[in-house]
């Protein structure tokens, strides 16, 4: 009984992770502006990874796996916003036509 419940919880979590990863990848191909594509890519780094790693934690249920899986998830969650911020800065700095898509306040370079 307990094993069956564990399997179904893990299956639902991993399925959620895979479906959200699919939506994220679809968005990366469908959107026309790079900032929107960046938003979609961030879904994969946060929601999908949380669901997949959560599913793995439930599937193993072992203390030799759970802390390491949690640590990897924390590193992904900490790194993803920083990476997105840097890519956004790079896009603002390198794209001359970015003002056509994004409204920016005057006297800033959009990075502050």
């Amino acid at each position, binding site marked *: 009984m307990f094993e069956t419940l564990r399997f179904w919880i893990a299956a639902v979590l991993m399925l959620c992770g895979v479906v959200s990863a699919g939506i994220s990848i679809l968005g990366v191909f469908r959107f026309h502006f790079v900032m929107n594509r960046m938003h979609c890519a961030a879904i994969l780094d946060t929601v999908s990874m949380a669901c997949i790693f959560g599913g793995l934690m439930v599937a193993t249920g072992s203390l030799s796996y759970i802390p390491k899986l949690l640590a990897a998830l924390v*590193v992904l969650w900490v790194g993803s916003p920083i990476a997105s911020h840097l890519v956004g800065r790079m896009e603002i700095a390198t794209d001359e036509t970015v003002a056509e898509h994004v409204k920016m306040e005057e006297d800033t370079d959009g990075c502050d």
Partner: protein
Amino acid sequence: MMDRWFTYLLIGVLLAITAGLFFSLLRAIRGPRMADRILGINMTGSLTTAAIGVLAVLLEQSWLLDVCLIYCMISFLAVVVLAKISIASHEEQEEFDDV
């Protein structure tokens, strides 16, 4: 009995991650902007991390999770370095154009 179902589940997730890896690599190759390429690399890194995690559970090798942890750190570092290099080279090009 349930072990077999867990194996099927993990193999299914691994196959889905492989398909995702293909498309994120495609994004990195196609671009068209540098930001798209870096996003593709970032997504590839995240999906590879997940694939290593799934493999660790599937093969019951907990040391693979150490590899997974190091891999996501290196992936993050790669994105940061690529973005910084891209900004620096663009600024350098602008200075060169001004002169």
